């Protein structure tokens, strides 16, 4: 098996695949990338058994065949070669020989037969959605996922499939992010799946802002996303997601409307002097005005004021400033609305236009 390819053609796919491949693998073949040539198509695959990425590149080679190479080393070599270099790869005697200009490399290989293939996804549900929209659903919510919670269902992103819309929800128990986009799905009953953290991060990295359709196929315990450049598969978290609708406050009676940029910058400045670990800030909401207080164990203090559209009773409420900033950063509206009930109830942050598709719920800190 022998083929040649230009450095730039293989670099990006290889980069994406090595992100999927885990550095420390118990199974040696898992740190390898699978190369498969079939009919002048080069398919590259990497997997960590939870997620799998497959990229296809057109090449000019009469050979067919497959082999696996150490992904990281292969990538590092390609990266280190000069721009526009042609790379020639030949396999013989269980070794891969790379040549480019005056450079020669011999890499170890493992047979492709050892490479695990994620079982094909039985498509229980299939639909298509423009790539940029799928990316939006993920990016507007993924930051609210839990990092390493004992509750497995929090360490992922919930995707809810309805016949007329697609909804993404992520929560770590302190805040929750929800995004909804219209989408036509052939489905009788709405369905929820949880994509694990790693799958979410990879998918977000892979998707771009094009309006090409992404084909989404959801099986019993897998999701597969196919776009022209790649095929991505992830296992699903096996379990239920909590009833998020319960968590979105329904009874807010105090609404403060404010320029997003104003509150964002004000909070960013105040946050500098909040406790580094707990990130607490205090908001004092009065008619037309918000005062922000932050202090830290070193007894340093910050105080900020900004104007709001608000005419309700005074309210004092504490937050982890990061949670509020995350929400403000994810929103794109110029003006945002903060919905309050009282100091001990969750706050809802949304854009100020009708039918805004993103909602952020932040639970306060007790002052």
């Amino acid at each position, binding site marked *: 098996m022998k083929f040649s390819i230009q450095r730039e053609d293989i670099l990006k796919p290889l980069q994406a695949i090595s992100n999927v491949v885990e550095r420390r693998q118990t199974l040696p073949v898992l740190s390898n990338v699978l190369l498969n040539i079939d009919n002048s198509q080069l398919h590259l695959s990497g997997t960590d058994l939870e997620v799998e990425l497959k990229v296809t590149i057109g090449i000019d080679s009469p050979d067919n065949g497959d082999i696996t190479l150490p992904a990281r080393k292969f990538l590092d070599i390609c990266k280190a070669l000069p721009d526009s270099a042609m790379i020639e790869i030949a396999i013989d005697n269980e070794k891969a020989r790379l040549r480019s200009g005056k450079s020669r490399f011999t890499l170890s290989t493992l047979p492709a037969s050892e490479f695990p293939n994620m079982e094909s996804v039985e498509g229980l549900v299939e639909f298509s959605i423009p790539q940029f929209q799928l990316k939006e659903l993920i990016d507007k919510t993924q930051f609210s996922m839990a990092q390493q919670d004992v509750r497995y*269902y929090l360490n992922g992103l919930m995707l809810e499939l309805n016949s007329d819309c697609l909804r993404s929800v992520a929560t770590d128990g*302190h805040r929750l992010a929800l995004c909804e986009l219209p989408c036509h799905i052939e489905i009788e009953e709405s369905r929820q799946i949880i994509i694990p953290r790693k799958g979410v991060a990879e998918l977000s990295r892979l998707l771009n802002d094009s309006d090409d359709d992404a084909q989404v196929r959801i099986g019993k315990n897998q999701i597969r996303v196919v776009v022209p450049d790649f095929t991505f598969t992830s296992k699903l978290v096996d379990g*239920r997601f909590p009833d998020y609708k*319960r*968590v979105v406050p329904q009874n807010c009676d105090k609404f403060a409307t404010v320029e997003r940029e104003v509150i964002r910058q004000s909070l960013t400045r105040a946050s500098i002097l909040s*406790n580094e670990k707990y990130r607490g800030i205090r908001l004092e909401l009065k008619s037309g005005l918000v005062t922000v207080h932050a202090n830290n164990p070193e007894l340093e203090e910050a105080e900020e004021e900004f104007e709001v559209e608000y005419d309700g009773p005074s309210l004092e409420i504490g937050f982890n400033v990061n949670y509020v900033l995350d929400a403000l950063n994810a929103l794109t509206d110029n003006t945002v609305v903060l919905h309050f009930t009282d100091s*001990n109830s969750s706050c809802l942050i949304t854009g100020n236009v009708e039918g805004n598709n993103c909602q952020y719920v932040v*639970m306060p*800190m*007790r002052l």
Partner: protein
Amino acid sequence: MSSIADQLTLGVQLKDNASFANFYPGDNQEALQGLMALARQQEPGFLFLWGGEGTGKSHLLQALCHEVGSAGDPVAYLPLGETPSIAPAILSGLESMSLVCLDDLHSVAGDAAWEEALFHLYNRIQLQGGRLVITANAAPSLLGIGLADLASRLTHALIYHLHCLNDVQKGYALQQRATFRGFALPEEVLAYLLKRCSREMSELFDLFDRLDQASLAAKRRLTIPFVRDFLDGQ
């Protein structure tokens, strides 16, 4: 200014209201089956469950109410231990329920007004062909019921004695609860809890709930250091 415990949390824990599925039966398999059969049947039925604290009496009754009530039949659950909020007048008309559950009968044993009201309720349910389940901390004959008419009727029930869980079973029961909440309790933490804390099942479950909440608020895993800190702070 704030300590981590002051972060309030969203209600994102998975609901695990009492059901038959999340009851760890231990040696009480037969009673569990008896109740499940009663939930399915439309015919009259009368069960009496007795056992000590933490043997799962209330859980089983709640589960039964959930099962029968969710199917749309009217049911009533009466915690007779909560006597300030309930009085014998609450029993009137209950024969129109498809199922009546009376929890903690011992709490009102010896109280003449309650006993007579319960006796009449029994008769009315009997006449209507409804279902009745009673729990108490002792067998009917040892409850000290003053009204002989009521005492003899209680012995007519299909009586189940609920047994306490042993330590191994308590561990399983906690583990099962964790699974229903979507996480695993590490073995060493489980052993630590069983060794350090009350052996009383209801208290163990209560402690478990608080630990669950604390770990969510603190975004910490359930490790022995975390549990130790938590217990010290109690």
